[in-house]
């Protein structure tokens, strides 16, 4: 038997028991009605795309245009408000004491530096990211996200992030989300490279602390596919807009693991610089075809995790 035939037989057998549900027609029509409703409610196709599937209401679509801190506001970002949230999550999700990291077998491009130790250092307090535009200090939610923090501590020690580029900038005006995304070790950050945002450390680990910190301005969380849980690697994002809270209502599983203590002005400066739309089309990013890169190149010089 040749491989084509074997494959065809395997595929046929694999889906032999798959049947469309009897209620498919109803489900499709229901979906159609909600689609029509969404388009009308949102008023703008762009926003519909961004929040597709979950319209928490107009308040989420058109939030307060002046989030706490403001563009040139104080460098400290809502460290007070984060505290109760993280405490609450500790009750909801008791932290793991051993961590497990799995080989990333999805075939994504990786920069390998080994695997983090399975025993997390629970004393880690802050992560400092030195960039070409200044330093960003993050207070870590180590008790709530020990394995995430452990991974960062490990990668930082291996100089994994040194001289990597933040490859993605989303602004609320353009795509409804406000975030700077970094940590892809292979990213070019030029708004042209379609593989930007696909790189990782060669291992993945599970989500932690979901719901523990809202994705408001100042929150730092892990990047992963919206629908794909438990595939954290090295990419992370820094929220600079409360608009991102809508991600939570979509049920997206982005492990929040810290809050910016110092350096939001660095992020704001980068955000203010705008982005290079991927292949000239700002919405290609939302469709998942590529990444809108910050116009001002952002290079991480060094990352340290300290007690």
């Amino acid at each position, binding site marked *: 038997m*040749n*491989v*084509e035939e*074997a*494959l*065809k*037989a*395997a*595929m*046929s*057998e*694999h*889906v032999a028991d*798959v*049947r*469309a*549900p009897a209620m*498919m*027609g109803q*489900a*499709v*029509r229901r*979906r*159609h009605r909600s*689609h029509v409703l969404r388009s009308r409610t949102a008023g703008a196709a762009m926003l519909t795309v961004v929040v597709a599937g979950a319209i928490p209401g107009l308040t989420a679509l058109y939030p307060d245009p002046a989030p706490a801190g403001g563009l040139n506001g104080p460098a400290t970002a809502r460290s007070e408000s984060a505290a109760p949230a993280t405490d609450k999550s500790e009750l909801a999700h008791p932290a793991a004491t051993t961590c497990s990291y*799995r080989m990333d*077998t*999805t*075939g*994504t491009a990786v920069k390998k530096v080994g695997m983090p130790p399975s025993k997390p250092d629970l004393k880690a307090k802050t992560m400092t990211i030195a960039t070409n535009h200044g330093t960003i200090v993050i207070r870590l939610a180590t008790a709530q996200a020990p394995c995430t923090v452990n991974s960062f501590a490990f990668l930082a020690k291996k100089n994994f992030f040194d001289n990597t580029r933040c490859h*993605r900038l989303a602004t609320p005006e353009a795509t409804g*989300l406000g*975030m700077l*995304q970094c940590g*892809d070790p292979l990213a070019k950050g030029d708004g042209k490279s*379609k593989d*930007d*945002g*696909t790189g990782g450390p060669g291992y993945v680990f599970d989500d932690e602390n979901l719901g523990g910190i809202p994705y408001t301005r100042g929150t730092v969380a892990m*990047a*992963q*596919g*919206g*629908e*794909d849980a438990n*595939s954290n*690697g090295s*990419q992370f*994002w820094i929220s600079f807009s409360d608009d991102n809270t809508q991600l939570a209502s979509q049920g*997206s599983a*982005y492990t929040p693991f810290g809050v910016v203590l110092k350096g939001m002005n660095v992020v704001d400066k980068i955000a203010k610089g705008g982005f290079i739309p991927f292949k000239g089309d700002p919405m290609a*990013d*939302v*469709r*998942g*075809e*590529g*990444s809108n890169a910050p116009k001002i190149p952002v290079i991480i010089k060094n990352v340290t995790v300290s007690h």
Partner: protein
Amino acid sequence: MTDDDEAAFDEFLAARSTALLRTAVLVCGASAHDAEDLAQGALEKVYRHWPRIRHDNPEAYARRVVVNAAISRSRRRKVIQEITFARPPETAAPQSDLDLRDTLVEELRRLPARMRAVVVLRYWEDLSEMETAALLNCSVGTVKSQAARGLARMRARIGALKGTTV
């Protein structure tokens, strides 16, 4: 949408939605449950344009929507950028007691999304190279090379399973 349109849409679903769902399962390497969402989304698009497309091969349209959605989701790399629908099962890779079918399906899941789409369209849907290229909006050369690479990986897995090359 007239009553006639509605009735014809129901007929279309009865006849084709299972096939579409199966394609979705294979193309995204997902469970039937996950793939259902994708198929449903595609069918909603079909429904939206039904009066216009009902006489013009709506199945091909639906298939195109499913396949492209699966690929573009897979590219949603991190944060609204990636879905690895196609995550391989948690079990370790090479276990010689897995039978051939499981091995091939598992390897299919591991292929990059576009390569997987090419393999499914060529060897399960039996589309020609040209049809596959048209559906994926790429060149015939790309279809050829992606199909060859996909098959090579399958062969390698079978070889590893049997300790010989196929």
